[in-house]
């Protein structure tokens, strides 16, 4: 897929809670086609301390309005600076980057997100709906205050929640949710994104039960286009770049 470097207009910067915000960016040109779990590399404006771009997964795409939306957690200096971006400023991005979730060969699909890992699942669900697949979504948060964009996700699938303290949905982690613990597991494929620990546990669980599972990883990276070799992940076939050979990997490939 051809990659682009372009300055996009910030048409919306909406704070969702203390830690999260949405950035909607508009391209003057027609957007390239974007696949689920692909990401952008965003240049942080005017800072010498945040020298490198930040990889951010694509949360939503609107091809009619040529907008892409990023759901971002404030995790450090770079994302803090991005959260201060004003409407009508420009942000320079390199995109679309990475491989994507593969299309399922069955109709019963479960998307699992933890924390910021819910970000790519919206566009993933939307994408699957276009192929006639209504996904089920399971999203885990620490507590009810951190639950993001409930109404929006509900449009694209059947949504279930778990929170660590039980303040929204079921109490516990996503792995403890009843969807994964009933006698009959109806899903033929799992797609997941979230913290490493969650993905590792889920990967182990899926392998033990013989369920096909793909995860989208996030590693520190510089270039995003396979040149710097900084973002490598250990796999059964050696080091692979998360930026170009990922971010999506089948859990069977991973050594972690």
């Amino acid at each position, binding site marked *: 897929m051809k990659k682009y470097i372009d300055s996009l207009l910030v048409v919306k910067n909406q704070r969702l809670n203390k830690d999260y915000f949405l950035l909607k960016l508009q391209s003057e040109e027609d957007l390239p086609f974007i696949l689920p779990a692909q990401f952008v590399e965003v240049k942080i404006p005017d800072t010498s301390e945040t020298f490198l771009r930040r990889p951010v997964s694509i949360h939503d795409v609107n091809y009619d309005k040529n907008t892409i939306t990023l759901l971002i957690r404030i995790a450090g200096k770079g994302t803090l600076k991005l959260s201060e971006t004003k409407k009508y400023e420009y942000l320079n991005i390199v995109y679309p980057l990475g491989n994507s979730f593969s299309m399922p060969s069955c109709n019963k699909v479960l998307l699992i997100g933890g924390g910021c890992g819910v970000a790519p699942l919206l566009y993933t669900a939307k994408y699957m709906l276009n192929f006639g697949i209504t996904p089920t979504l399971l999203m885990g948060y620490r507590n009810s205050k951190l639950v993001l964009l409930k109404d929006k996700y509900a449009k694209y699938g059947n949504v279930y929640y778990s929170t660590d303290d039980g303040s929204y949905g079921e109490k516990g982690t996503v792995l403890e949710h009843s969807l994964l613990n009933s006698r009959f597991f109806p899903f033929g494929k799992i797609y997941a994104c979230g913290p490493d620990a969650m993905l590792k546990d889920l990967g182990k669980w899926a392998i033990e039960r013989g369920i096909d599972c793909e995860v989208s990883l996030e*590693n*520190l990276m510089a270039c995003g*286009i396979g*040149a710097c070799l900084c*973002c*490598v992940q250990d796999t059964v076939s050696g080091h692979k770049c998360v930026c170009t050979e990922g971010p999506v990997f089948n859990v069977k490939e991973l050594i972690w």
Partner: protein
Amino acid sequence: MVNLNIDFNGLNFKNPVLTASGTFGYGYEFEDFVDLSSLGGFIVKGTTLNAREGNPYPRMAETASGMLNAVGLQNKGVDFFCNEIYPRISKYDTNILVNVSGSAIEDYVETAAKINELDKIPGIELNISCPNVKEGGMAFGTNCSSAAQVVKEVRKVYKKHLMVKLSPNVTDIVSIAKSVEEQGANSLSLVNTFLGMAIDINTRKPKLSTITGGLSGPAIKPIAVRMVWQVSKAVKIPICGLGGIMNADDAIEFLLAGASCVQIGTANFIYPDITMKILEGIKHYCNIHGIKNITELIGAIN
């Protein structure tokens, strides 16, 4: 219009803009952003005799105006390069140099000999300055006799343009440059990365799996410019300058300090199309300043 052509001790560069090893993959990673044939040349990533998996993750840490890396020469070995990569990149109408690294002199020699057989590769960049491998690499480039020894042995088997990439992690870079020149190097490239370190103060752990790594980016540029200036006064062979170049002004600074051409490195990670912008910027500078031939700028510090 300015003539940007450079005669680099036998290599003909159509302009002074090249890219640095390890920051530009094998070139084709940048095809969507760069017209590769419009570059003076590019230097493909560090190639070793046998395949190397490189260092464990994390291999990178962002620093003020720069970054540390500890990739550790991950590559699939010289045979893979010759059989799989070379046929794919030899179509580009530019100078493709291969960065050759090793952990023993025999490795360098054997790798260089294999690359000598490739028609469309007019030169190698001998990497005696990688700070991220346990054995060899920088160890060869930090004293005069070992630097001279590896160049001498490679010179015996490598018949084309031999560029030697110097380490800045030395007390006296000029003496290393001279000893390499004496052994028949055709040119020098300087500088490789500076040995650096960063610590996560919350976990109290080093940010790199290898503890130390190589610092690159604009943070190192003034030191690199100083070293190019010092070395250019002391040697007769031409210099390819690098270290933190982010724009055309930076590139021109290196030319004025005495470099005949430049390599763009870390900037490729941030702006994958930066080489094209730098090339345009150099032309613009020459037009403004009435420079008819780019060679007028080389070492033209007042």
